[in-house]
């Protein structure tokens, strides 16, 4: 599945993204796609201070994406049963909400 829509990933409100998965499991497809989208050049260019940390484990654990926002909120997504579009929707809707009001006013 390609990226849902052509909306670029904006990481301005994100402080840290920690992704962990075990590649030999069969349910990591969406997590790996999420990683490739978030770690792309464009996404990283939106916020140079955001860290993307990947941990590759081998203990049959579930793939987990842990996002820490600038204002301290955390979003934990367990990617075992999520599709990439659901993950991106959830992530981007929260990012847009957290964006400062002036930016969303300009967009409108």
């Amino acid at each position, binding site marked *: 599945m390609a990226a849902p829509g052509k909306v670029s990933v904006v990481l301005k409100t994100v402080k840290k993204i920690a992704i962990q998965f075990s590649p*030999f499991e069969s349910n*990591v497809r969406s997590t*790996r796609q999420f*990683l490739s989208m978030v770690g792309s*050049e464009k996404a990283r260019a939106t916020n140079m201070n955001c860290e993307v940390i990947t941990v590759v484990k081998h203990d049959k654990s579930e793939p987990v994406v842990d996002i820490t926002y600038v204002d301290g909120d955390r979003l934990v997504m367990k990617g075992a049963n999520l599709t990439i579009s659901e993950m991106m929707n959830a992530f981007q809707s929260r990012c847009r909400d957290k964006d400062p009001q002036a930016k969303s006013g300009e967009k409108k």
Partner: protein
Amino acid sequence: MAATLCVKLLPKQGWLPLTQIVRHGSKSVTRHRRPMHILKQKLMAVTEYIPPPPAAPRGAYPSQSRKVKEGSPLVLLMKKEMGKVFQENKMVAVAQNNGCNAEDMMMLRHSLYKHDIRVRFFPNEVARLFLKESIYCNMTPLFMGPTILIVSKEPKVKEMLKTLRGSPQMTLVGGCIENTLLSVQGLQNYSKLPSVTVVQGELVSGLTMMTSRTASLLQRHPTHLSALLQQYIKQQSSDAGAEAAPKAEEAT
């Protein structure tokens, strides 16, 4: 603009002029987006494309993905290449690169080439087809997303890990060293192992330690006896020397 001009010039309705004045002073091709005439705007708004509603909702049927034709010559060639790669190289590692730009890629390839480690690219579909038929079928789940193969003839895991730690975009996912599938932790443990010669030396020294101990135990008594005899001889010679020296003094 031409229409407004024509209205005045042509009294009869529906009579198109032979020549149409196109140039009116303002250009049609501009560097900025020319504001559309209101009539054209209305026309464009009315004739916008409305896609037909999908017969089934999006997630109902599996998406029709482009399937790689198995028999095509390019695929066969790539499969042969992969076979060669797996045969020639003792170490084959799979890494995922999210958004590595060309410059970083070049630097990475250069630093790996210094240790005689090459970087190869194969499409995931071809990789899956090849792995199904070969003995490495358990590596199939590793090939997902944007992956690259890092291969080398000698298993130089330490240098590879060091170089990959330098680039944050590369994520090592797994590897196959001498036909043994290893995870990331396995690769790290492999890198911490001492080299073959060191291990062989340790083994040999451990085995010979036992035999040398028994040999020294057996020879303990004779060596003790020979040491004592030597000491006795020394004492005798020193006594003889001591007797000869006072005799020589008495004589002189």
